[in-house]
C-alpha cells in the first residue's frame, strides 16, 4: 500500500514537472502562435487582437494555472491552428497511433516469442547461428529505412498495399488495419530482433541452471522443461524490456507516421510544435507521459508477479 502511494506520488510529481517544463519551453522558444497564425499578413494590431483573443496577453503563471485547472477538469482547450477542441482533434489521432503501436507490439510478441524459444531450444545449432547473425543485422536497420524499403518493395513493386493511401477506420475496418501492417512491421522488426536475442540468451542461461536438471530428473520432457520452468524464469529480464520496447514503439511510430503518411499523433505533435499550437502540444505530451509511466508501472507490477523474490522483499 505504501509502495503504491509512493508510486502515485512520484507519478503525479513527474507529470506536474513535465507540464511545467513544456509550458516554460514555449515561453523561451522563438516564434509565437500568433506570428505563425498570421504569417506574412501579421500587423502589430492584428497580433495584439489575436493575442487577446487567445488569452496570451496574460502573465505566464496565470496562464499555466488556468491551463492546469482546465486540464484537471478535462478541458484541454482549443487548438490554435484548427479552431477545434483539442480532445476532438486528438481522439481520432490517438486511435490511429494506439492501433499502430499495439499492432506493432503484438507483432513483436508474435515474432519474438516463438523464434526466441525455438532458437533457445536449438541453441548453438547451425540454424541458431544463421538466425542469430540475421537477427543482429535486422536489429541494426533503423525502422525508417525498413519503412522506405517496404514502401518500395511491397508498395511500389509488388503492390501489396498502396503507399500513402491511408484509410480511416470508420471508412473501412479491414483497409485500416491492412494499411497499418507494414508500418507496424517496420517498427516491430528491430524491436522483435532485440527481444529474440534477449529471450534466447535468457533461456539459454536458464537452461544451464541447476533447477533445470532437477526438472529433468522428475521426468519432464525438453518442451515441458522449457514451458513449465525455463520460460517463466527467462521472462524476468524480458518483461522489463518489453515495457521499454512498448515505449520505444510509441516513439518509433512518430517517425514511421512520417514515412507512411499516417495522420497520427506523432505527425500532429511535430506540426503542432512547429506551429506553436501549445494546447495541442501540451495535451499530447501529457498523454505520452501518462502512457509511458503507466506502462512502466504495469511492467513493475508484472515483474513482481513473475518473480516472487522481488515481491516478498
Amino acid at each position, binding site marked *: 500500500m505504501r509502495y503504491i502511494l509512493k508510486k502515485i506520488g*512520484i507519478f503525479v510529481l*513527474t507529470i506536474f*514537472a513535465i507540464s511545467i517544463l513544456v509550458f516554460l*519551453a*514555449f515561453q*523561451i*522558444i*522563438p516564434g509565437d502562435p500568433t506570428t505563425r497564425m498570421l504569417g506574412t499578413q501579421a500587423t502589430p494590431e492584428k497580433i495584439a487582437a489575436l493575442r487577446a483573443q487567445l488569452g496570451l496577453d496574460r502573465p505566464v503563471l496565470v496562464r499555466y494555472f488556468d491551463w492546469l485547472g482546465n486540464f484537471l477538469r478535462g478541458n484541454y482547450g482549443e487548438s490554435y491552428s484548427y479552431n477545434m477542441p483539442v480532445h476532438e482533434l486528438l481522439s481520432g489521432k490517438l486511435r490511429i497511433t494506439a492501433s499502430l503501436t499495439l499492432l506493432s507490439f503484438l507483432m513483436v510478441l508474435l515474432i519474438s516469442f516463438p523464434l526466441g524459444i525455438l532458437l533457445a531450444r536449438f541453441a548453438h545449432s547451425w540454424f541458431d547461428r544463421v538466425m542469430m547473425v540475421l537477427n*543482429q*543485422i535486422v*536489429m*541494426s*536497420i*533503423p525502422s*525508417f*529505412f525498413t519503412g*522506405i*524499403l517496404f*514502401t*518500395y518493395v511491397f508498395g*511500389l513493386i509488388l503492390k501489396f498495399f498502396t503507399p500513402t493511401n491511408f484509410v480511416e477506420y470508420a471508412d473501412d475496418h479491414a483497409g485500416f488495419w491492412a494499411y497499418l501492417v507494414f508500418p507496424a512491421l517496420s517498427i516491430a522488426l528491430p524491436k522483435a530482433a532485440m527481444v529474440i536475442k534477449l529471450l534466447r540468451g535468457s533461456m539459454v*542461461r536458464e537452461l*544451464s541452471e*541447476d533447477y*533445470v*536438471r532437477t526438472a529433468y530428473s522428475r521426468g519432464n520432457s525438453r518442451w515441458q522443461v522449457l514451458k513449465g520452468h525455463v520460460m517463466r524464469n527467462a521472462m524476468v529480464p524480458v518483461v522489463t524490456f518489453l515495457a521499454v520496447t512498448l*515505449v*520505444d514503439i*510509441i*516513439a*518509433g511510430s*512518430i*517517425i514511421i507516421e*512520417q514515412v507512411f503518411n499516417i495522420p497520427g499523433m506523432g505527425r500532429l*505533435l*511535430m506540426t503542432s*510544435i*512547429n506551429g506553436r499550437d501549445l494546447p495541442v502540444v501540451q495535451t499530447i*505530451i501529457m498523454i*505520452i*507521459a501518462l502512457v*509511458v*509511466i503507466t506502462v*512502466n508501472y504495469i511492467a513493475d507490477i508484472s515483474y513482481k508477479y513473475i518473480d516472487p523474490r522481488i515481491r516478498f522483499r
Partner: protein
Amino acid sequence: MKKLKNSHRAPNYNLIWGCVITSIMVLMIVVSFFWTPFNPDAMSYAEKDLAPGGAHLLGTDNFGRDIFSRVMEGAGTTLSIAFCAVAIGASFGTVIGGLTGYFGGAWDEFIMRINDAVTAFPSILLALVIVTITGSGRTNIIFILGILFIPSFARVVRGEFAKQRQMDYVKNAKLMGVKPGRIMFVHILPNIAPVLLSAVAIGFNNAVLAEASMSYLGVGVSQTEAVSLGRMLLDSQAYWMTSPWQALSAGCAISILILGFALISEGLGTRPMWRPTTKRRRKQHA
C-alpha cells in the same frame, strides 16, 4: 550437469566482427578528412543522377554530387556527433553515477528518481521534442543527445560503483586511508571499465540511430551545414524510382555503422554477463 558443460572458449566473434566493421567505417571517415574521390559538395549538372559504377562508385545524386564521397563525409558527421554526444553523456554520467553510487544516501535516491523519470521516456522522442524547440543544427543535437545520454550512463556506473563499494579491496583501501576521490577513480573505475566500455558502445549505437532519425525527420543536421546520412536518406527518398542507389547507399551506411557498434557492445557485454568479474575477484581476495 554444470560441470559437464562445454567449457571451451569460442573466439568472441561479435567483438571481432564489430571491430572489423567499425574500423573499416572509421578508416573511411579518417580518409575522408584528407581525401574523397570527389568534392562531396561539388554539383554538376552534366553528372546528375548517374548510376553506380565507373568513376562514381555509388553513383551521383540529383545535384550531380558523388554519393560515395558524400557517404564518407556523412558517416563522419554522424560519427562525430555520436562521439561528442557519447563523450558528454559518458563523462557526466560517470561522475554523477560514481558519486551517487559510491556515497549513496538521500542524494542518490533523489538523483536516481530523476534518472528513472528521464530514462522512462524514449530518448529519441525527447530529443525530437527538444530539438523542435531549440532548433536544429549540429551543435544543438550534440548537446541534446549528450544530455539525454547522461542518465543511462549514470545508472550503469552507479550500479557498478554500488557493487564495487562492497568489495574487499575498496574496504581495504578505505581502511588504509585512501581518499574517496582516489578510490573512486583510481581503484574502482578501472574495474568497471568493461561495463563502461560496453555502455559506451551502446551509447554510440543509440547516438547514431538518434542522429540519423532526427536528420531523417528534417530536424537534425541541416542539409548544407554538413553531409549527414539521415538527411541524405530523406533527400533521396524522392528519387526512389529513378535512382534508388541514393537512398540505398545512405540507408545501408547507417545500418552498417549501427551494426558495428551493436556487435562491439555485444562482444563486450557478453563476457561479464557470463562470468561475473565479481566472483573471480572475491576469490582473489579471500
